[in-house]
């Protein structure tokens, strides 16, 4: 490295250290978000330049002289050498979902500091490494999936465990993101109308692309964007109409049923009609909005009104129970480390990489971008006054069912807010109310609306920006929901096909309908449990999602560690073992507390016992109706089900880890021959 480059990187390190120092010593006055963004960007830059390079060339041994499967097996369909930056865009669009937006918003209940540190450090040392190594190992194995690599490199048991874990995660993930959408749209005629417009708009684009202008994705997406924006703008008139507003105003339970029916219908319709066109739209809008948010934060350089640490680091938080350790690290998954990314990284992308060195930019770099999205989401959370933040994100069960009770509770915590201020805020963004709008999406939308509307003096458009943000989140969540249900259906068909071959046929429509119904029924059950939970579904479902996601990351890192041992890279095992050890510690601690904590807000079984005691007492005293008794019985069952699912996931982690450690011991002591299952090496003919 030349002296000038060394000096440049030294200055980047100094700038990052100064920014971190300012954040560390800031007291009293709100800190400007630019310091947070500067610290994050400097750490990312150093991480990419030095750590990813170390992993790429010392640990993995990337070799551009070696032909990738895209070159060796090029067929114009699956294996296609693709421009690095085009593939970067595709891969980023695939991995960037609602997780890095919602997780930081929820974790902000601890203040901005714990979540931000986890996003940046966890991302650079954990998530980026996991994505990178998984992508590279799949690349060297002609694009094999995570499950296939688990079977080949660890054991048959590891492969089956991975398959089951993926199915479980899919169900929980879809239920959680559906819950986020429900909470974003409940009692919101404007939001509901906007989302309702998306469905016919997407179908129109689907027909346009299939029959009118085949292959013209850009112009079809442009048309779709105009239709969607018409929905965003037109929603105001619907919300203000005494005739139409009630037709688009739904309770959370009604919305949950609507989404369940929608999820089923959209997953059995042909992909070209609804899923694919909506996916194109969602991708362009998502990428554009993330870019706009970054620019908006730079231009607006807002002060962060949430403190670095709140009183809720003690575990008494209203949004979800539990202390910073382990729950901050469970709540923020996708912005720091996400096991689901290992599925994407061992999916289509490895088959499209033209040169091995591109795996560093795409694997490490894309996750780094997503981590930065998490930082921006954290900034969007912190531009709200703490009182507003907690009023929007706290469930009624934690703060009170009426505005007066909620503001009294929140103000009593030291975060003053009044009912009138909340009413004014709701009015400014075109909502009936912003109380108890849990799930993270509404408060993210408020934060984004404030950032966008303070840029270029567009304050009058705050309501439009808010509903644009709601639309942008709901759009790609619905895509995740639809795509996830299909994948779940394919996996279930694959499993059931071993027992009843007809069910395994993806072109047998009765089988498609049945398996879709089973998958939708599974996530629909958790969704309904979440909307009926008086503590707020996020309190129970989001940690379940985080634990299951980190479980999959554990499996991916076990596979990666096994492969590194087989490659003879024992001296570099810390690269995967360190994040693995951290994840196991976090997920095991979180699982234990969620199942067995005596605190009814935290432990599923403690909450079930509390409800059971209350039910017994009420029944004995004759003070409860049959309907209410049935409802409480259902809540008790859901608590026990959540505890069971958590235990099963935790046991799976232990089993995969134990199996992996056994394999490592066998290889380390020469009891088993270390056979790599890489594709044969051929010289590349593609130019560098």
């Amino acid at each position, binding site marked *: 490295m030349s002296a000038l480059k060394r000096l440049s990187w030294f200055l980047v390190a100094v700038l990052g250290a100064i920014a971190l120092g300012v954040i560390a010593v800031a007291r009293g006055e709100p800190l400007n978000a630019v310091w947070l963004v500067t610290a994050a960007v400097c750490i990312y830059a150093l991480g990419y330049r030095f750590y990813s390079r170390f992993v790429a060339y010392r640990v993995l041994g990337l070799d551009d002289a070696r032909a990738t499967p895209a070159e060796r097996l*090029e*067929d*114009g*369909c*699956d294996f*296609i050498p693709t*421009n690095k*930056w*085009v593939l970067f*865009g*595709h891969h980023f669009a*695939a*991995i*960037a*979902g*609602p*997780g890095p937006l919602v997780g930081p918003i929820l974790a902000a209940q601890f203040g901005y500091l714990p979540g931000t540190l986890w996003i940046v450090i966890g991302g650079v040392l954990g998530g980026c490494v996991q994505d990178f190594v998984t992508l590279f190992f799949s690349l060297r194995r002609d694009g094999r*999936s995570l499950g296939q690599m688990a079977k080949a490199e660890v054991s048959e048991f590891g492969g089956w465990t991975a398959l089951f874990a*993926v199915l479980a995660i899919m169900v929980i*993930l879809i239920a*959680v*993101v559906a819950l986020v959408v429900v909470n974003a749209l409940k009692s919101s005629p404007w939001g509901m109308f906007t989302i309702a417009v998306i469905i016919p708009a997407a179908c129109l684009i689907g027909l346009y*692309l*299939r029959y009118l202008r*085949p*292959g*013209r*994705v*850009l112009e079809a*997406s442009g048309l779709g964007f105009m239709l969607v924006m018409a929905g965003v703008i037109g929603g105001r008139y619907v919300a203000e109409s005494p005739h139409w507003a009630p037709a688009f105003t739904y309770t959370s339970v009604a919305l949950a049923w609507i989404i369940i029916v929608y999820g089923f219908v959209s997953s059995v319709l042909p*992909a*070209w009609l609804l*899923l*694919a066109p909506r*996916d*194109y739209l969602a991708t362009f809008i998502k990428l554009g909005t993330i870019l706009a948010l970054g620019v908006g934060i730079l231009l607006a350089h807002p002060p962060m009104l949430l403190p670095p640490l709140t009183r809720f680091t003690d575990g008494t938080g209203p949004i979800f129970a539990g202390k910073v350790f382990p729950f901050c690290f469970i709540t923020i*998954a*996708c912005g720091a480390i*996400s096991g*689901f*990314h290992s*599925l*994407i990284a061992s*999916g*289509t992308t490895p088959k499209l990489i033209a040169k091995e060195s591109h795996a560093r930019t795409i694997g490490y770099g894309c996750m780094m971008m997503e981590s930065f999205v998490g930082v921006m989401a954290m900034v969007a959370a912190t531009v709200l006054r703490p009182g507003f933040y907690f009023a929007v994100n706290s469930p009624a069960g934690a703060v009170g069912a009426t505005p007066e009770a909620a503001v009294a509770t929140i103000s009593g915590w030291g975060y003053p807010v009044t009912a009138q201020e909340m009413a004014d805020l709701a009015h400014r963004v075109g909502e009936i109310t912003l109380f108890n709008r849990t799930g993270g999406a509404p408060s993210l939308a408020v934060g984004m609306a404030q950032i966008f509307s303070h840029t270029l003096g567009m304050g009058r458009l705050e309501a439009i920006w808010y509903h644009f943000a709601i639309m942008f989140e709901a759009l*790609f969540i619905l*895509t*995740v929901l639809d*795509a*996830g249900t*299909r*994948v779940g259906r*394919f996996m279930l068909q694959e499993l059931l096909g071993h027992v009843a071959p007809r069910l395994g046929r*993806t072109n047998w429509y009765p089988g498609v309908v049945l398996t879709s119904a089973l998958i939708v029924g599974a996530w629909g059950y958790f969704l309904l449990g979440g909307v009926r939970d008086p503590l707020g579904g996020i309190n129970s479902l989001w940690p379940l*999602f985080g634990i299951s*996601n980190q479980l999959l990351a554990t499996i991916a890192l076990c596979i990666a560690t096994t492969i590194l041992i087989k490659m003879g890279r024992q001296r570099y095992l810390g690269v995967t073992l360190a994040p693995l050890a951290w994840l196991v510690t976090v997920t095991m601690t979180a699982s234990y507390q969620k199942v067995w904590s005596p605190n009814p807000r935290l432990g599923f079984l403690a909450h079930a016992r509390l409800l059971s005691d209350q039910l017994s007492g009420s029944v004995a005293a004759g003070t409860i109706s049959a309907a209410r008794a049935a409802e409480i019985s259902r809540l008790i069952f859901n608590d026990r089900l959540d505890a069971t699912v958590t235990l099963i996931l935790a046991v799976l982690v232990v089993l995969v880890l134990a199996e992996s450690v056994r394999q490592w011991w066998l290889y380390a002591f020469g009891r088993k021959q270390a056979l790599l299952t890489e594709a044969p090496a051929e010289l590349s003919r593609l130019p560098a």
Partner: protein
Amino acid sequence: MIIQLLKSVWSFLREASGENDYQRYCTRAGARGESPLSADDFYLSRLERKYSRPSRCC
């Protein structure tokens, strides 16, 4: 220069959105002496492959 830049951006977007994929597929099929799928069949099979495995993350 601005026009050139805009042309480059448009070209990149067309490539990223897959508008050139069918043409490239036909070229490769022709080079291998195979008769290519129709544009419609290519589009449908590509969607089938894309959405039959995890393609959109949380």
